[in-house]
């Protein structure tokens, strides 16, 4: 690193400069534990997924969400503001044999994200699950109803402010038979 070839001038070589932050179609990207993670905004999501689908990221594996109410995270790239919820979309490219994760920040005050149903019909059930368990609405979803919990359930269990709902257990001595 310190041996520059004779015909290269000093301003062409800057070994100590920090690498450019990676960008994918205008969206910042980080690499963690060997996987690429991109951070689109909610309004960039559908276009990005459509573009990626045309580039070979053919299948949407998973749509899920995380509630970061009790854990301020430090792994967001510059320019991305942390919100309470994150919708996490995992795509896969069969040709490249690689997975890509998209994390969309969703504010608590207005938890709406555009639906990926038009691009990947297979996200229908997964988005319903996110709605059911987190309360995040998907704009443009054909049938946004609860899927796992009974229809009259109140609340969204996977949110951090929803208790686990355990009952205290009483241990009794075994009764005589």
């Amino acid at each position, binding site marked *: 690193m310190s041996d520059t070839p004779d015909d290269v001038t000093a301003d062409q070589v800057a070994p100590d400069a920090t690498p450019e932050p990676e960008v994918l179609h205008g969206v910042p990207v980080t690499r963690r534990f060997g996987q690429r993670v991109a951070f689109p905004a909610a309004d960039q999501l559908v276009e990005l997924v459509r573009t990626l689908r045309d580039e070979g990221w053919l299948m949407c594996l998973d749509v899920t969400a995380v509630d970061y109410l009790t854990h301020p995270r430090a792994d967001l790239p510059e320019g991305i503001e942390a919100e309470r919820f994150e919708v996490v979309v995992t795509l896969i490219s069969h040709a490249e044999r690689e997975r890509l994760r998209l994390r969309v920040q969703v504010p608590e005050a207005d938890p709406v994200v555009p639906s990926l149903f038009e691009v990947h019909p297979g996200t229908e059930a997964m988005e319903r699950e996110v709605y059911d368990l987190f309360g995040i609405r998907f704009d443009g979803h054909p049938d946004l109803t609860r899927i796992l919990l009974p229809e009259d*359930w109140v609340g969204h269990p996977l949110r951090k402010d*929803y208790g*686990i*709902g*355990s*009952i205290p*257990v009483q241990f009794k001595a*075994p009764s005589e038979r």
Partner: protein
Amino acid sequence: MGLDFSNGLGTIDHNVVTARVEDVVKWARTRSMWPATFGLACCALEMMGTGGAHYDLARFGMEVFRASPRQADLMIVAGRVSQKMAPVLRQIYDQMMEPKWVISMGVCASSGGMFNNYAIVQGVDQIVPVDVYAPGCPPGPETLIHAIGTLHEKIADGEVFRRRADNGGGANITVTQLDGQRGPQPVSLGLK
């Protein structure tokens, strides 16, 4: 019933057997108890295994799992009962004809098991009266057969109805878990 069959049927003088009605009824009930299919989760696989060739419920007259609750007398609740499934469970139980029995198979059905949370009913006895509780996660076929055998025994000696009258609901018999008791199996838990 006091007859001597040691030399075969040819030695019987009379071809009439007398018994008390209660005994014949109990004999019929225990020897052809038909379970309703109520396999919910992992325990259902062990229940199906009990019906299979190795453990064979057919020798008890129970290999016909009736899909229709109208034709079944025994409901083996095999698996965890979620909040959404609870009314369905009750509906199936109500559709069964008397006399009917319930075996709660596995810890999830008996008490909620390892899932003490918002989604699982903490014991199917919140919804239907249970006669026999079979522990295990899942209870192996041996435990399930022990539970079924216990139920048969208790029906045959009238104990089940006595216990139900006492408890105001199910007979509440708990059996011990019998599977995995073939003797000590060496397991290597350290470096050799």
